[in-house]
């Protein structure tokens, strides 16, 4: 479903990604592991369509090129990104925000939009899945949320919007073990044979709960090694230095 071909990305003439090739098919969960500054987050944002990058190469989603499409077009096509740093939007109610997002999707798909009552019953079901209290629904988007709460909120959005492809950008960073389990559990509920996931992380911990199909090691803007869960364990044990010539 997602095909990245020879992707080169730079910001202000500084090369960040240096020829990424990656193919993810429906039902697969790929993990990309790497140190800080290896280009993992840049890859997420480039897929999501953030502006400000110089891009060469190709990104195809279900056979169609994503490059040149706006972030919202990509979102409506089914791409979701769980942010490493979810953004605070003061004054905007969390429920209202989620409803606007879901209705934008329904509208784009030519489906009827949900009214406030229907949405509320839907969201009350979803929020149980991520172990959040209903009081979060009446708070403003990420306003005053702890790091863990923000990530839970991202997963709540994932489960509500049900995209076909999810990028989890360091969704595990800053989480304690309980929160980690909840997040992983939420992701596992999202997962099915129709959907693809790209999880970006420093650590193996999250992967223990999510069991990726493929694990990639990324160093200095390149995928240097690809394997299965055992690669993640090896990276955790030995670090990344052994992969550098």
């Amino acid at each position, binding site marked *: 479903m997602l095909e990245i071909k020879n992707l080169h990305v730079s910001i202000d003439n500084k090369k960040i990604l240096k020829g990424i090739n990656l193919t993810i098919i429906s039902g697969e969960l790929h993990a990309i592991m790497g140190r800080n500054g290896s280009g993992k987050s840049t890859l997420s944002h480039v897929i999501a369509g953030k502006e400000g990058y110089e891009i060469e190469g190709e990104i195809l989603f279900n056979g169609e090129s994503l490059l040149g499409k706006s972030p919202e077009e990509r*979102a409506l096509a089914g791409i*979701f990104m769980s942010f490493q740093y979810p953004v605070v*939007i003061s004054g905007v109610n969390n429920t209202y925000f989620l409803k*606007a*997002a879901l209705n934008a999707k329904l509208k784009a798909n030519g489906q009827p939009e949900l009214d406030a009552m229907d949405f509320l019953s839907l969201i009350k079901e979803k929020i149980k899945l991520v172990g959040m209290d209903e009081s979060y629904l009446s708070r*403003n988007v990420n306003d005053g949320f702890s790091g863990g709460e923000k990530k839970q909120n991202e997963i709540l959005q994932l489960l509500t919007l049900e995209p076909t492809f999810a990028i989890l950008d360091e969704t595990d960073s800053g989480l304690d073990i309980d929160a980690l389990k909840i997040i992983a559990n939420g992701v596992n509920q999202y997962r099915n044979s129709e959907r693809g996931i790209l999880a970006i992380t420093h650590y193996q911990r999250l992967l223990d709960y999510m069991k990726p199909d493929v694990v990639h090691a990324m160093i200095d803007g390149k995928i240097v090694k690809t394997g299965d869960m055992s690669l993640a364990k090896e990276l955790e044990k030995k670090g990344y230095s052994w992969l550098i010539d």
Partner: protein
Amino acid sequence: MSKIIEKAIDQEYKYGFVTDIEQDTLPPGLNEDVIRAISEIKNEPEFMLKWRLKSYRQWLKMEEPTWAKVDYPPIDYQAISYYSAPKKKELNSLDEVDPELLDTYTKLGIPLEEQKMLSGVAVDAVFDSVSVATTFKDELEKHGVIFCPFSEAVQSHPELIKKYLGTVVPHTDNYFAALNSAVFTDGSFVYIPKGVRCPMELSTYFRINAAKTGQFERTLIIADEGSYVSYLEGCTAPMRDENQLHAAVVELVAHEDATIKYSTVQNWYPGDPKTGKGGIYNFVTKRGACLEENSKISWTQVETGSAITWKYPSCILKGDNSVGEFYSVALTNNFQQADTGTKMVHLGKNTKSTIISKGISAGKGQQTYRGGVKIMKNADNARNYSQCDSMLIGEQCGAHTFPYIDVRNPSAQMEHEASTSSIGEDQIYYCNQRGISTEDAVSLIVNGFCKEVFKELPMEFAVEAQKLMEVSLEGAVG
């Protein structure tokens, strides 16, 4: 960010059309004969003419104020026609109203008939200077409520006009108020008798139509002892290439235990979005007096229109325990300039005032909050809470805040909070990534910013206000 924003600061005025109705119009110019002519057309009693002439002579001695932070070319007061009225007058039902006029209302989304039947809102429609349709009058009469065009009240209730006119905003108050007092042609009059809770929201739709004709509205609302009234005022105007002067005066009088809630949605033509040319000049004096104990006056305004806005709805808190409130959302986009705020004057004991002001600037819009809180010597235990928040969209707009505080009684409690924020690129991106378009994201964030004020509006107005913000900001961020 600026590129994104510029791309979208582009919005055509949706209500830009002119209705072709024959007008009775006085030639341009202002002198005592013009004032006599207006008074005569209106068939006014002697005391009104005297008051108008007194105001005119006062106005001649005054100078146009220049302290507001707005910039506009000099106004030629002799180039303005001071009276314009649709030819048909004194209609008893909608059937007699010019169908073209009714069509205008339909274009504005204000179908009178539907409103009559469905919404329970009585409408005193001010079309240019003469009111041509008044609805729900019978229902109101049952409760003893008087709600009619000002000129009609001059005929039917001259004693009330004589007693209250100019008591809150004297003819000497300021340049524009003096001008209004001299030449005003119509407006609304409301009287709520003792102990009556007005059975419906009272609403007026103002509309400026005739070219080069200044609009001078005069509104007077009196809430007698223990009464309650909620009054809604909403405006849109046709597209126009000439500056149109609007100098309205609104006076509110609340007696003991009475409450007046006055809500405004103002959306006059803001001028050409690319050049700023041709928008309405809106110089308004609005003031309410809480005359006696436990009275309350609450102003809520949503100001999105006009090229120049000069407006400070204020409260004189004379009665002990009286309450004044001001909730405002003002938006300036493109070349709009607004200098707006409020004045709360505490005279009585235990008087309380609340000011919540939300200013949004986009494009090259310039906005000033100017607020005055005065606690006088005898106002023991007076309290004020002021909050003024500004939001900037883009890099070419401006927000300015001038709070004046004058406390002459040591028991006063004053609180003032202020903030400035902008809509961040990261917020827009986050919304986009969730499939929300940039325009919807902006309106989501702006409506969130304004919600403390919107919740003060009557339900149907709150919905309209949100829609208006969306329309007014269309394209403010690309």
